[in-house]
């Protein structure tokens, strides 16, 4: 019953979405309001249907309905309750339904927020959103149906991949997808602007908050993904330049560029063409990312199943890219800049350079990701490029971007005078240089680490200097210290939200630098009672224990860690044996610290518990990455607050 019900609902939803898209587009062309209202109703209907379908799927998981192939493939009778819910989006078909639901939700919000304040653009926006939604619903009815019946009905399911049975896997897809789908809205507005010819700044002002929200969720999704990789996968790293990771990183890079270049358009009415191009590129990259992970075109550690779904995505991606770029070419003349770049030493120039670097990084990641395809097409040999390639090319770009983070917000528009430069940057440059000397004195020998950290200090100084000056100015007007500080944040929340986001990025950068420069690891086989020494810590192997643990069998080791002065703690790296998996899954145990993360992975072990092979890592500064994410969150929250019109 459930398979047919769900499947039918999705077909109806798809037809409604197609109808709604056509009706909205027709309304845009003819001006007939009735069509638009009909399209709106269709959108509401689609949201209701997709919500119902999603709930139906969740219900099927909770009630162990193995008549559904998707349920049988992703859960067993012993899967815990909460993982049964998250298993809904644990594999291909379910991830598409989650994506579709978020798109439908965003469409609903767009309707509620914009049906009155963007009358000329709104019909096209609705048409585009419903069109994209229709595609994803199509995918769920043909190549990747979540409601496919399985006959004969098995007695038990196969189970959820144990690597996915983790808290990170509950939140990571949700955050990531909210980010991906969120970029559909600015894209829809851009298409609406092109279609109507109203390519001035209104579409940008309308979508500013959408862009920040989408960008934020994408950032969050990437960070959670890194966190999941770090504490589950057992290699002690948080980023591997895997094609699937790159697929999410590319739209983040271009999305960041877009976030910045719109400010130039708002202020100087330049870069109109560039901005539309950027948002088209960002949206296309979100589709490309999905295409990459589901088509099997590029082999990856994460690779999902193959099938005709790749062809569907490829066709849609091509359609989107060619049509939107075609629209762009058509409206070329209307997109002429009204301002000019007066000087290389200006904020416009800094933002432009920021964009160039971000797009260059995105291109690099793209190139490295499709390189195996390229080399096979050109030379016939399978060649891949590994992490060294990405690091080598991207690190200089990222360093440049950090530097620009300090320069951009403070340098003057149009043409920065020497006075402006001196006033804003002299102290930060001095402080940054002093910091470099201090780091060297403290023993930092890696030139890259020293440079990155000094740049970080430079940027932090520019932010601090600006804030201090502004606070002082308010205080001179008679305000108290705290009201002055708070009032600044409230009155100029966009600016200070941006600063806070930059600070968050700086903290992340420090974390990445530290973890690369100063982390150490060691692998050793120890007998019970023996110890391994690393970075001043002593890890003593105290033995193994084994027991049944719900849906798996657990072999747990015990390591006592001490470093001389602080109290010792015990870590229990383990191996989990799941009945349906052919190999055990390592369960890393770790202790997080502000500077030192202790990280132990159990490798091989003797069956009688007398001996174990362990990989031990002391990772430095990794926690700063997660802390940076928190700062980023606060900054984004501040930035999207509604602006206060009256002076505080």
């Amino acid at each position: 019953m459930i398979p047919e019900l769900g499947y039918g609902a999705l077909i109806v939803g798809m037809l409604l979405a197609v109808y709604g898209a056509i009706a909205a587009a027709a309304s845009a062309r003819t001006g007939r309001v009735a069509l638009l209202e009909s399209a709106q109703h269709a959108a509401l209907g689609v949201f209701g249907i997709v919500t119902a379908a999603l709930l139906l799927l969740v219900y099927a998981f909770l009630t162990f309905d193995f008549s559904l192939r998707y349920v049988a493939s992703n859960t067993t009778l012993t899967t815990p309750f909460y993982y049964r819910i998250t298993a809904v989006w644990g594999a291909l078909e379910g991830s598409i339904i989650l994506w579709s639901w978020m798109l439908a939700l965003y469409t609903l919000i767009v309707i509620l927020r914009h049906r009155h304040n963007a009358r000329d653009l709104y019909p096209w926006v609705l048409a585009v959103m419903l069109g994209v939604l229709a595609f994803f619903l199509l995918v769920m009815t043909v190549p990747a149906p979540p409601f496919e019946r399985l006959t004969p009905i098995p007695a038990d399911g196969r189970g959820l991949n144990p690597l996915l049975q983790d808290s990170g896997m509950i939140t990571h897809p949700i955050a990531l997808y909210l980010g991906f789908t969120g970029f559909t809205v600015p894209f829809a507005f851009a298409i609406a602007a092109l279609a109507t010819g109203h390519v001035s700044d209104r579409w940008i002002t309308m979508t500013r908050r959408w862009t920040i929200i989408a960008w934020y969720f994408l950032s969050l999704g990437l960070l959670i993904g890194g966190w999941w990789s770090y504490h589950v996968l057992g290699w002690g790293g948080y980023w591997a330049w895997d094609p699937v990771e790159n697929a999410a990183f590319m739209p983040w890079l271009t999305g960041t560029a877009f976030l910045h270049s719109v400010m130039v358009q708002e202020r100087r009415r330049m870069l109109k063409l560039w901005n539309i191009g950027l948002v088209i590129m960002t949206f296309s990259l979100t589709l490309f990312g999905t295409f990459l992970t589901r088509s099997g075109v590029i082999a990856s550690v994460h690779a999902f199943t193959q099938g005709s779904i790749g062809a569907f995505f490829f066709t849609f991606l091509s359609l989107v890219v060619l049509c939107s770029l075609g629209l762009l070419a058509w409206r070329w003349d209307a997109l002429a800049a009204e301002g000019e770049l007066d000087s290389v030493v200006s904020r416009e120039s800094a933002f432009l350079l920021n964009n160039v670097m971000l797009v260059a990084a995105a291109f690099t990641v793209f190139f490295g990701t499709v390189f195996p395809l390229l080399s096979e097409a050109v030379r016939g040999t399978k060649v891949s490029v590994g992490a060294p390639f990405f690091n080598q090319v991207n690190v200089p770009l990222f360093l440049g971007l950090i530097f620009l983070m300090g320069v951009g917000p403070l340098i003057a528009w149009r043409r920065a005078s020497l006075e402006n430069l001196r006033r804003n940057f002299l102290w930060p440059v001095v402080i940054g240089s002093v910091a470099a000397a201090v780091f060297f004195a403290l023993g930092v020998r890696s030139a890259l680490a020293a440079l990155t950290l000094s740049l970080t200090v430079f940027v932090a100084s520019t932010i601090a200097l600006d804030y201090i000056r502004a606070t002082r100015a308010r205080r001179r007007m008679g305000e108290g210290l705290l009201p002055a500080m708070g009032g600044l944040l409230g009155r100029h929340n966009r600016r200070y939200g941006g600063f806070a986001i930059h600070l968050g990025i700086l903290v992340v950068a420090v974390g990445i630098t530290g973890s690369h420069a100063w982390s150490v690891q060691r692998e050793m086989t120890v007998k019970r009672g023996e110890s391994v020494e690393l970075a001043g810590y002593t890890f003593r192997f105290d033995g193994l224990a084994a027991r049944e643990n719900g849906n798996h069998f657990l072999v747990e080791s015990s390591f006592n860690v001490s470093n001389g002065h602080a109290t010792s703690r015990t870590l229990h790296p383990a191996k989990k044996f799941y009945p349906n998996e052919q190999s055990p899954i390592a369960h890393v145990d770790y202790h997080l610290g502000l500077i030192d993360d202790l990280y132990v992975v159990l490798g091989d072990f003797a069956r009688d518990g007398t001996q174990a092979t362990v990989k031990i890592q002391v990772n430095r500064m990794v926690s700063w990455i997660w802390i940076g994410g928190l700062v980023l969150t606060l900054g984004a929250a501040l930035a999207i607050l509604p602006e206060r019109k009256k002076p505080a």
Partner: protein
Amino acid sequence: MRRPLRWLIPAAALPVLGLLAYGFRVNPHDIPTPLIDRPAALFALASYDGPPMNLEAHRGHVVVLNFWASWCHPACYEEAPVLERNWQAYRDRGVVVLGVDIQDKPEAGRQFINTFGLTFPNALDPVGKVSVDYGVYGVPETFFIDGKGRVRAKHVGAVTDAAFRREVEQLLAER
């Protein structure tokens, strides 16, 4: 920019899309096998039902050799009906479908065969020698062997109707 030049922008997307389209022809799951055009390794196994399975006995026929296992969810479960269906369709034209169950328990293998009502010969490969001889990485894998006993194609993952027919028709056409 003059009128025609602006269309360079959408045109610039074409080579990139072309490259991705090329990616479809290239299947990263095709682990290259040097067995193509080489003689298929001969073997003899005790089958689940019926006479012993002997590859040499089928010389002169097109043979579809499929490696599966009962614990192989969901791919082997997806392709079992496909194999049975196509076995029924092509047996009159002399095509032979052979199934080899690897690393499995006999009871589980039997249950799998009964569940899908497989009528083509299936045998258990208890020590895995046959799978080693064919360089089998995992299940399911299907080898298409021509009448002269040479391996002509290898399909990794669940075999589809289209893939089965394409390979078999090609080999039948050669005779």
